[in-house]
């Protein structure tokens, strides 16, 4: 019988998420890392992260800050000589990190995404002001204070709506039913 290693299991988990399957194709050329505008802020570069995942270092990979610094600018994706959907792969790692409760405490990005999604889930649209205020209050009220000048300039120029756009009641219910069903089906894998 073929022996399955810890690394095999982790690679299978990643590969099951659309876009994650590319992890098997990497040749460690480093093009993604060289292209990434944020690689120098990451504790592990994108290509290192792939090598670590293939070595079975699940906890280290999923608790990394690297994928949370991905800007979804897709430069790595268009440059990868192996056609790996690098940005989707980063998203796959983010999803797994959340699922395993390992999303990095050293970056506020997971909390920001969570706040964004909560608003979209309940309203079907994103009220920018409410979302940003909520996120700052949740993570760093001091920063909310520092952002007052930016908020005021947006307000003065008519760009800060307090009121959210609402879907029809039927639309809101329809969307919630669809999203609840998606939740009950587990992830995309």
């Amino acid at each position: 019988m073929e022996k399955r290693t810890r690394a095999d299991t982790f690679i299978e988990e990643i590969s099951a998420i659309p876009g994650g399957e590319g992890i098997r194709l990497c040749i460690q050329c480093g093009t993604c890392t060289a292209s990434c505008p944020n690689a120098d802020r990451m504790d592990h570069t994108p290509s290192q992260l792939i090598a670590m995942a293939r070595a079975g270092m699940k906890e280290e990979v999923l608790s990394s800050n690297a994928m949370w610094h991905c800007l979804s600018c897709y430069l790595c994706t268009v440059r990868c000589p192996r056609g790996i959907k690098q940005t989707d792969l980063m998203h796959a790692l983010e999803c797994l990190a959340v699922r395993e409760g390992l999303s990095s405490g050293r970056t506020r990005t997971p909390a920001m995404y969570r706040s964004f999604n909560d608003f979209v889930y309940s309203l079907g649209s994103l009220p920018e002001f409410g979302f940003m205020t909520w996120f700052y209050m949740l993570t760093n009220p001091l920063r909310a204070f520092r952002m007052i000048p930016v908020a005021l300039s947006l307000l003065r120029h008519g760009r800060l709506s307090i009121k959210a756009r609402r879907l029809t009641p039927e639309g809101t219910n329809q969307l919630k039913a669809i999203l609840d069903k998606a939740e009950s089906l587990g992830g995309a894998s």
Partner: protein
Amino acid sequence: MRYYTYFPGCSSSEGGAKAYGWSTQAVSKVLDIELIELDDWNCCGSTPYSSIEELASFCLSARNLALAEKRGLDLVTPCSSCYVILNRTNSHLKEYPQLKAKVDEALAVGGLEYHGTVRVRHLLDVFVNDIGYDEIRAKVKINLGGLKVAPYYGCQMVRPRPSFDHPENPQSLDKLIASLGGEPVPFPLKSRCCGGSLIISEEALALELIRKIFDSALSNGAECLVTPCPLCQTNLDAYQSRVNHKFKANFNLPVLFFTQLMGVAFGLSDEDLGLKTCIVPAERVLAKYL
């Protein structure tokens, strides 16, 4: 008259980029385009949803696509993020059958189905390819002669899928500016990232990316920037004072939506274009054309 289904996205409808929505409608009218807003559309979920709730993110897009499919027209959005997310759903549903099965199951709960036939397009693509530069040039009432403009494409309109322009050295916006009489300046960072939504959670790194973009534009003689993306506009315009503060810099570069620049050249009024919503005032560089 050409007809399209219109997906404004949250920013350009009632969010911070309202002026993008206004100027889109005003310029489309001049070009004999009718944009019919999709009824009861929902947020595309943008990067936050696709980062941490992948199945739900595809379902958010799929509801919009299912609603649009009933109309049978191309779905046009002025927002680069909506554009990339809706297209991602389209291509992933074709590529991953097991994902499609789950999305279908979720849609069915809402009484919807999606067959994958909607073509999602960016507004800029419609303007330059369906209408064309010649027709745009023919509508110009005020030639923007002498105005040096940095065409800032950002990321998500040109990447990752092959679309209507080059993923790293796009040209459509350059040619559009030229057809209005303006001068597109060389701009090496034209499709580099502005920091996106990380401006909220990791401001320091985003401000540094924005500073590089301003440096590149300014060193090539730009008087203003134009962009086809609401988030890019907001980051470059609303956070310009934060960049100046952090780097002790002195940037004073207006950042316009490309539709606003077209509107100025078409002789449309300030009310139609919302120029006053620019935080770095645009009147200074546009005064001689208004």
